């Protein structure tokens, strides 16, 4: 009897219709992707970027290549150089820094390895291109990303417990180059005197 009634009154269909029409009143879930975007957590592992120190705008990276060593897919190549000023080394930096993002597995080991927190991951994931070569991110591009998505990168570092939001604490961990003592206080006179003699000898010849 009950079965008959169910069949006659199209209860099943009504139930289905109820479910369908009830969705007219539910908040929509689908995102209109190019126009709308998902909210991502701070720990999201997106495109890599390089960072600068906020106050000096100096490159953080010292070109130590530890990221390259940590990388499981060997997609990072670093060439380091030093800047000299008056015979004293004042900066160590990466003269070239390339990440082959096609090889990258987004494990985040490089960020973890970085001793100066120069590398970070952003939430950026849109880098499709028609040229494969564009997917090898060079140093300039990485710094551009870092500038554009600075907040995201910072957020990543904080979320992964690598950097503190408190600037004061951060600055305590900052490295600096040792100043150089080239000559002794008493020595310059002697050193200046020596070349004169040599010059004299040469002119005599």
């Amino acid at each position, binding site marked *: 009897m009950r079965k008959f009634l169910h069949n006659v009154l199209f209860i099943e269909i009504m139930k289905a219709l109820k479910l369908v029409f009830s969705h007219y009143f539910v908040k929509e879930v689908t995102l209109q992707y190019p126009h709308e975007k998902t909210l991502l957590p701070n720990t999201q592992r997106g495109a890599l970027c390089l960072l600068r120190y906020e106050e000096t705008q100096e490159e953080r990276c010292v070109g130590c290549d530890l990221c390259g060593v940590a990388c499981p897919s060997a997609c990072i190549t670093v060439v*380091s150089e030093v800047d000299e000023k008056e015979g004293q080394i004042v900066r*160590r930096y990466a003269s070239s820094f390339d990440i082959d993002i096609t090889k990258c597995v987004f494990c985040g080991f490089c960020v973890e390895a970085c001793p100066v927190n120069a590398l970070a991951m952003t939430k950026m994931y849109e880098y499709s291109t028609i040229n494969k070569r564009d997917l090898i991110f060079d140093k300039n591009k990485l710094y551009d990303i870092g500038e554009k998505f600075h907040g995201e990168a910072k957020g990543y570092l904080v979320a992964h417990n690598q950097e503190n939001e408190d600037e004061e604490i951060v600055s305590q961990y900052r490295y600096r180059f040792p100043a150089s*003592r080239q000559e*002794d206080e008493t020595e310059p006179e002697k050193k200046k005197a020596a070349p004169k003699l040599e010059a*004299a*000898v040469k*002119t005599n010849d």
Partner: protein
Amino acid sequence: MSSVNKQNASPDRKVELIDIVIDGKTVQAEEGSSLFNAIKWTGVELPAMCYHYSFSPFGSCGLCLVEVEGKKNNVRACTAKVIEGMVVNTQTEKMVDAQKAAIEKHLKTHPLDCPVCDKDGQCELQDMAYDLEVYDIKEGKRKVIPEDTRAVALDFNMERCILCGQCINVCKEVQLVDALCFYKKDKAKHVGAHGGETLDCEFCGDCLAVCPVGAIVNKFSKYTFKPWQLEKTETTCGFCSDGCTLTLETKAREIKVVTSELSYTSKFGFDIEAGDGHGGICVRGRFGFQYVMSDKRLTLPQVKNNGEFLEIPWFKAMIEIAKRLNDIKAAYGGDAIAGLISGRCTNESVYLFQRFMRSVLDTNNIDTAARYGHMNSVLALQETLKIGGATISLQELALSDAILMVGSDFTETNPITALRVKASMAEYGGKLMVAHNTETKMLKLATLPLQIAVGSESHFIQGLVKAVLSKGLADSDFIEKQPAAYTALKSAVAQISETVVAEKTGLEWEKIEEVAQTLALSKRGVLLWAEDIVSKTGAYQNVQRLIDLALLCGLFRKKGAGILPVCEENNEQGAVDMGAVPEFLPGQIPFDLEDERQRFESAWHATLPSASAKRPGLSLPEIIEAAHRGEIKALYLVGENPLGTLPASMKVREALEKIDLIICQDPFMSETAEIADYVLPVATFAENEGTYTNIVGDVNRVVEAFSPRDEVRPDWKIFSDLSKNLGHPIQYRAVEEIRAEINTLVPGYYRQDKTMQIGDLSEDFARHVADRYKTKENKKTDTTVTLSLQQSLYHSGKLSTHDENLMEINSKNFLQISPADAEALQAETGDLINIKSAFGQLEVKIEVAEALPKGLVCYPIHFNDPPVKDLMTVEVDAKSKAIYFRSIAVTLARSASLDLKVIASEKALQEREETESSAKAEQT
């Protein structure tokens, strides 16, 4: 299980083992040894930074804290000595906390510049903090001290320094140099030269190797690498005959740093046995790597065309050279071809070279750098005892109880073997006797310093032989077995006058007797001779006399005793062993031994050049003479540079210009290469595979750190290619195949435990022994000043002068002069003086050296500018054909320019002012 204490490991000393309890386990330890060692042997990891097995415990870092029952405070395990019945706890919570606190203390003053520090990744402080999980490092008072970059090869970063004192101790106790110390400046403790002055030491760099943090920095590679980027290759040094094991650390085909065992082996010395070296290297090995990457290296074969060099490809060069060699061989025979090979080539290259020359070019005119001196030792030893080198090992040298060094500036020529000698004296309580005409570093350290007069080595040795015989100290075994030789010797030395010896050497006769007595009564005596004996006039006889002395003292019979003839270049011994001399086939087999010749002929599928008395093969001086006569038509030079090495009085240039074809195989464009017809670029030791034979006959492996740059090829490949083009192919796929061939022809050459089989004395010995003691009429010479060519610590041959780093450390082409002579000339360091010999005169800068006696001036043999070597005369030994050109009588005079200098300097100042003012005028 027992712990070893290196300091007490002399074979004469009997150690008693005592029981102590560590963490509930009873272990045995040597009485008087460090508690730290005993704990380490149980397998417990104690943090420590100031401890090192090669010197005595210092106890400055305060990390190795342990609990000893019955003591209130924690005990530093390194400085504590083990006592019978001691109960030690290391793993209690209290101890771990104490160790953590100690590390925190260090970290609070340590700067956080790890990202740029060179030690990052190898830092002991970093590792210990990581192991013990010390992370709280942010608060603390960091030091701010400017980096000391005044010294030439090392930078001192005192911010990073943890004041462990390892550098100071290794310098003081291992090197016995004592160049470093703690000093106070601006209320902070520093490490540096005494009094805070600029460091000016030997720059061995052992302080750099033992530094647990990055406080001492290598100036030449500062900030250019990180440890994880470096590839390590363990190879053998290519400079001196010590044959030290180096670790070349390369990054992208460039050597960044050179390290050694000392930098990496466990500082706790688990596998260290008595007499082992400390694993360090010297200044040449550590800093002399730049020449491998030099821009001046040759990259392609070159042919001389109308006086200019043209680069040609290898195949063309090989075909052309082969054709010309073939033509010369067909027209004039093999005797018109000669070859010289340097003492720096690997054994395999030398072996292949002599096989190539003998079997393909049918000539026995081959020679090597050993002819400059070491051949004297080899030939004299072969003649008397049928051995061709040292009879002791390096361990035995360190454990010997008496060492007599004759004519050797050992710390300069062989700094690392010299450390064994220093250890034998300082650590194991041996007696060191040094006879030298200058006050060398070794002579200053010696227990019995014997500063003999210039040129009196021969008198000194004769005096020693007489003293041994006259005091009745001669070895009883020798008297029993060789009664004829003993009586002949005794009668021969009878006419040596004690007073004459004393007068000539400037030593008292009692002192000579004391030396003779010490050596003759020693249990493990070592007799060592070097360049001042073998490369100066009368060398062959002097070596023979030294062998007599060794026989009389029983040095060949006693265990642990022996002789050590020192050679200069890294593979001189190997070059002789591999038969690159006309006298020997590989394995030092006489060239005219018919059975052996047949063995080699069948192995090489060729006929050897005849060994008849008519054509015995020419040695180096004979090759030059023959070239002079126009008899040599082709000369193959492998790494040899006769123009740069031999004095002009030998008329080398004239001789070489008469040769039709000169092929020069060298990494650099040498003086001789410039007049060669073909120049072939070859690989250096870092790009080569093979072996070197060192001073005591150990064969050490040379490993390729990276493949040869550009078109450069290793020596053996060139010989192999040439032989193919000449129609007698000698083909190998790898160096291993050459090594296998050597192994079959010279059985056991590569064995590490090989010992010299000392032959019996020949019958001739007794017959001829008296000849060398017949006193010759000493020519009365009125020489007041002797010029001597000496080796410098910072250089080795001419090779090191191509190295930028070593030239930066030391490129002093100064004539060293004694204070007395300088005063007589009224000259000071840096002045030019005129030096004149029978062969010419030139002006040279002088440096006053306290160590020199009056009447001796020294010039480094490595430099040719000014060409001091051209003042020398050449003498050729009648017996060994060795060339002597290291000393000559000269007269010194005030240079004319010295008087003018004052005026000249004023003039120069005036000129400078004028140019400056004119420049200013132009600007305005």
